[in-house]
Structure formats: structure tokens, C-alpha cells
């Protein structure tokens, strides 16, 4: 296990793990204990076990593990856990972070090139010039595509 790799995962995903844990336990102190346990004992094993997964998948694995550890801690510390834990955000969202029907409907409202324009502009934060160069479009064309695609999605959301 590479210590630098562990440190990088800690820097990237500890806020996520902490947040998941707080949402289950409603206690910052207990959540801190969970994150410590997670990165001390569980993540080092994950690094070896999931060496070929993408960083985004690793993030979800860590979040899921934080959720499970938090539930374990919840059960240890409360007398009647089943009555109190419920379906928290963490429990449902971390289990099922994949595409929901809302995501599919919204993104399929625009064509693939327009989605690429939006991805490069708003996720990868490229300039319009860079977006145009990357996709082999004119800068004006890229801007127009981005504006129209956003407008279309906005109308869809408004109709909600």
C-alpha cells in the first residue's frame, strides 16, 4: 500500500466521508472517529483490493464504507437503533449514485455534441475558444450551441 496514495485519497475524499457520516450520526465528534477508522483500517485495504477502479468509483466506495461504519457506530451507541436510523440521505444516495430518470430525461433533451459543449464548458471549465478548438467548431457556433442547449434544459426544468 502506497502511503502517498492514501494521503491523496484522504485529501480528496475525507470531506465526503465526514459529511456522509455526519448525516447518519448527527455528531461531528463521532463522524471524526468514523473517518479516522475509515482511513486507518479500511481504505488501505481498499487501495490493494480496488487497484483498477476509477477515482470516481473509489470515491463512491469510500462514501459507502463511511456510511456502513457510521451505521455500525450508531447501532453500538444507541439502544434502539432500528427505530431511529431510518432512510437517511446518506443511506439512499450513496447506495444509488448512478443515473436516475431525471438525469436521463434532462441530458437526452440535447444532442451529443451539445452535451459535449456543456461538459467542456461547465465541467472542464474550458474557455469558449478552447471548447471550439476541441470540438472542431467555430467559437460563435460553440457559444450558440451552449446557449441554446442550456435554454432547452431550462425550459424543461421550468415545465417541471
Amino acid at each position: 500500500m502506497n502511503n502517498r496514495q492514501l494521503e491523496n485519497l484522504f485529501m480528496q475524499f475525507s470531506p465526503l466521508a465526514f459529511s456522509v457520516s455526519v448525516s447518519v450520526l448527527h455528531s461531528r465528534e463521532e463522524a471524526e472517529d468514523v473517518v479516522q477508522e475509515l482511513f486507518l483500517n479500511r481504505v488501505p485495504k481498499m487501495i490493494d483490493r480496488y487497484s483498477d477502479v476509477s477515482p470516481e468509483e473509489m470515491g463512491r466506495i469510500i462514501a459507502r464504507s463511511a456510511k456502513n461504519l457510521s451505521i455500525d457506530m450508531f447501532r453500538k451507541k444507541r439502544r434502539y437503533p432500528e427505530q431511529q436510523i431510518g432512510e437517511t440521505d446518506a443511506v439512499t444516495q450513496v447506495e444509488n449514485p448512478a443515473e436516475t430518470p431525471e438525469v436521463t430525461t434532462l441530458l437526452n433533451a440535447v444532442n451529443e455534441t451539445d452535451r459535449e459543449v456543456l461538459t467542456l464548458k461547465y465541467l472542464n471549465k474550458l474557455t469558449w475558444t478552447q471548447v471550439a478548438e476541441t470540438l472542431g467548431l467555430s467559437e460563435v457556433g460553440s457559444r450558440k450551441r451552449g446557449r441554446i442547449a442550456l435554454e432547452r434544459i431550462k425550459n424543461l426544468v421550468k415545465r417541471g
Partner: protein
Amino acid sequence: MKQKPLSDIDLQLFLAKALPLRKRLYIRILLLLSPELQKQYATIVAENATFMNREQPRLHQSLFGKSTKSAPTPKTSLFMVPWLKPALSFALVALIALPMVTTYMATNTHSPGQPYYASKGSGLGVSLYKKEKEYTLLSDSHITLNISDTLQLMPMGTSDQFVALYTLHNNTLSRIYPEEAQVLTLFNEQTLPPSLIFDGDTTRLIAVTAETQHALTQVEQIIAGFTSGYAQTPPLSHLVDNIYIQPFLITLEVPHD
């Protein structure tokens, strides 16, 4: 189409880049369109900042034996930092002039003779300003300065970023900011690194920015693998693992007779 409200955990997964591309794009678009979601997002970012200032340094200390907590900001009016010499061509100067900058940014007005500064968009990166009676944007990556000219780094965009500054001088990489932390340090319009004063030796100033915190060991490993790129004139910027590295070549201005 009925949109389910996004939970805090959705936004945390988004911030940690732990979602598939399509879902990240979906959330990014909703963030552009929904003021309510923007507020929720800002709250999450603030909570993460609290975690990074409170629990994360303690956890880092216990797990890796060193704290991520930044060194306290220097408070003296003007000083040269002996431990930076002789390897560095820059010395940190105190933040005495920063209130001028931040006051200006708060008002965001620009008239002739006034410093000009405007963050735009949410992109990564720094802009370099020469600080005199007014602030002059230095738009090239090859900059000429006079001895004792003062530089101020400003964020290029309005979003929170994390930053570190290095100099590469005679093939020696030296970190000048943050002084003692082990990770990149928060950087935005309100939290700026100290000004830098030029001592006349040609040097390369390397600004490293990222949207999320990274260990400086990782940053330094990336820089070490690209020194030939920084040696070029003008030096080359590059983006590796979502870490943006902007080198600036700074040389002494040749006086014109």
C-alpha cells in the same frame, strides 16, 4: 419534468468528483439554473471549509503524523524572510497592502488611476499584478520587473481554489507559500497569498491551483516531472490530475538609454 431535489450527499459526491460524468453534468447544469441549489451548494462548500479547518488537520496529524493546518499569517509590517535566502529570488512581504486590494475588490469600481481587478467565471488559475500606485495586470508568462517591484497574485475566477507557490531557481524548487502546511491552501478574493518582492535574480515563479485540496508532495512530484517545460521561454502551463500549474519566467528589466 418533475425534478427531485438534490440532497447534500449528492452535492458532496459532486464536489468530490465521485459521480459518473453524466450525473456531474446534470448537477452542474442545475447549479447554473437554480438559485436555491446554488445556496445549498454554498452551504456545503462552507461546511467543507469548516471541516478542513477543524477536523481534517487533526485527522491528518493522527494518520500521517503531520498537520495540514497552515502557518499563521505574518503580521509584521515589512520583513525579509531569512530562511528563504539564498535559494529564493523572492521574499515574502507582509500583507500590509492587502486591505487596499480587498477594499478595491469589494467596491469593484474602476476609474483611471485606480487599481483594476476583476475575477470572472469560475476557472482555475492565477493572474499576476504588479503593485505600484495602481495594480497593473501582467498578462504574459514572461515578465520583466525592476528590483523591489512587488507582485500580487489574484484568483482568475470567483470560485474558491487552493493554491501553492514555488520558485524554481538554479534547478532548485523552493516552496514560498504556504510556509508550513502539507496541502494546498484556500485561495479566493478574500484570502490572498502575501505579496512578493523581486530581488533582481532571474527566476521562475510557479503557481499551482486546484479546485480541491491536494497534498503538496503530489504537487511537487508533478512539478519535478516537468522541469524542461518550465525551462522554456515562455514557460508552459499544464493541467495534471486536476492540478493546474502556471509557471512565470521573471527577469530583470533592462534599462533603456
